[in-house]
């Protein structure tokens, strides 16, 4: 009798512990899904404008914003590759040093670029246009491109008002951008007019990019089933379920990859092996912070719609420390299966390689004694690594197809060739 009672207690306790573990796992899952709307951005008065988003979508796919007319935002953020580019490092007009991150869910990030050199999405969007490694153009020529295109000009003026008289090449020279003699030769008012219009382009691109949310994934469908009280385990594979258990538990992934974007949105140094051992080490946030401080288009600057906002104050309050040298922003894991190569310099081609690194930390290179020490080797079995990978592959989901291409005109016809 006593033995039966003891066994009953043991079984009850075991069942209770199993139930507790499942409850904890479900609570963890619900903290990761669904993806909420991105936080508001008061520094961009057009962030939520559908007309600005449509205009921004047109700009995003428009190579006319580049120096030679052959590079657009979508060159490095290709919708068919989950808005990454499938390359080790970005290739615009020239080859860069950093892997192109996906921009799906970019509006959730508090820092833009992997080194956090921008504090708003609109200011990020302006950077590549004038970067000689990327689009290599100038703000003056970008505005001239808008003015010279019937559709773009009409959409711009409807949103933002008249454009400067950029056809006057004496006042608005070709290639004029800060740091160049053509720019310095311009009058202050003309410089201001060009920069004002240029900023509007960035704000329209942000309006579009805010719509690029990660789509519903198998993981999200499973979490929704928990909320519905059904907890349909068939919505993810058994391996993915086991992988989620590891992700939320022993693997420790959630130290940095938590919240609906599976990212703490901040910077870490994993002491990754360099892509090119002969090349100078990348400073990451160490340099990104300096660029942020000098940035013309800051959240608390004159081009911001809300320089006194909480967002702007917090961006200005960023701290840099010695541990930030060599650190890069934690990437979101949503759509991670589609966005290889991985890590800030594309060090790993596949998810398997990424997990193999975390499993052993082989090849880690500590570049200075201030570096943080977040990682410990996982020492997982091959089956456990496969389960983790299965879970990561369950995080893929596309945004609506209408957002994945150059927009058609509102009447459903393609724009004329002049807008291509």
């Amino acid at each position, binding site marked *: 009798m006593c033995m039966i009672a003891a066994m009953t207690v043991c079984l009850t306790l075991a069942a209770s512990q199993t139930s507790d573990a499942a409850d904890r796992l479900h609570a963890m899952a619900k903290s990761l899904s669904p993806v909420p709307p991105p936080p508001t951005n008061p520094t961009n008065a057009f962030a939520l404008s559908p007309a600005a988003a449509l205009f921004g979508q047109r700009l995003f796919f428009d190579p006319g914003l580049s120096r030679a007319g052959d590079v657009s935002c979508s060159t490095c953020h290709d919708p068919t590759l989950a808005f990454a580019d499938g390359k080790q490092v970005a290739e615009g007009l020239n080859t860069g040093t950093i892997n192109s991150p996906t921009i799906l869910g970019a509006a959730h990030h508090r820092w833009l670029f992997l080194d956090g050199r921008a504090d708003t999405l609109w200011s990020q969007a302006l950077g590549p246009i004038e970067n000689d490694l990327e689009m290599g153009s100038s703000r003056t020529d970008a505005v001239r491109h808008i003015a010279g295109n019937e559709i773009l000009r009409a959409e711009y003026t409807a949103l933002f008002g008249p454009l400067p008289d950029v056809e006057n090449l004496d006042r608005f020279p070709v290639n004029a951008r800060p740091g160049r003699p053509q720019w310095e030769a311009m009058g202050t008012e003309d410089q201001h007019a060009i920069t004002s219009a240029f900023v509007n382009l960035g704000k329209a691109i942000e309006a579009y990019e805010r719509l690029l949310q990660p789509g519903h994934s198998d993981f999200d469908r499973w979490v929704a089933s928990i909320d519905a009280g059904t907890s349909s385990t068939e919505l993810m594979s058994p391996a993915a379920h086991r992988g989620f258990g590891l992700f939320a538990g022993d693997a420790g992934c*959630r*130290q*940095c990859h*938590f*919240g609906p974007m599976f990212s*703490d*949105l*901040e*910077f870490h140094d994993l002491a990754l092996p360099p892509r090119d051992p002969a090349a100078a080490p990348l400073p990451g946030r160490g340099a990104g912070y300096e660029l942020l401080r000098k940035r013309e288009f800051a959240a608390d600057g004159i081009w911001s719609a809300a320089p006194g906002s909480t967002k702007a*104050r*917090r961006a200005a*309050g*960023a*701290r840099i*420390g010695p*541990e*930030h040298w060599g650190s890069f922003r934690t990437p979101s894991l949503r759509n991670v299966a589609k966005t290889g190569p991985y890590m800030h310099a594309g060090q790993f081609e596949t998810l398997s390689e990424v997990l193999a690194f975390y499993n052993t930390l082989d090849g880690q290179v500590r570049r200075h004694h*201030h*570096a*943080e*020490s*977040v990682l410990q080797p996982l020492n997982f079995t091959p089956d456990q690594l496969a389960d983790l990978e299965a879970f990561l592959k369950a995080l893929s989901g596309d945004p609506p197809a209408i957002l994945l291409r150059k927009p058609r005109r509102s009447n459903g016809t393609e724009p004329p060739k002049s807008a291509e």
Partner: protein
Amino acid sequence: MRLSTLCMFTLITLLLASGCAQRPGIKDSTTTEDGRFRVTWWQTPPRPIEANSYFELFVEVEDLTDDEEPYDLRFDATMPAHRHGMNMVASPTRFTRDSWVVRDLLLHMPGEWVMTFDVTDQNGVLHRASETVILD
């Protein structure tokens, strides 16, 4: 055992229902390592602190020995196990002769954080109080 479990469950339920564990405005307190100052802080929601959610502290410093006005307060938080601190500058703004507001604090990762309150007295001597916070 069942009765005691039931009693504990009831007690916790009553505490949670009364909002004691979550109510904003509840204060925490500690003293500097040398016992000179008592540091008391009130925290804005979210309470308890959540990983990667901004919060603010209202900090009061009381001189337990000389009743002297503290000269200055500095605040910081670090993760000793990870060897890093916050990614935000903590800038206490003086509110009264012995109180400060610290805005835009962000403990960006789960795990063990150590919050430090460094009180400088009128002679320039530093007195440290610290508190460990573990975030889920």
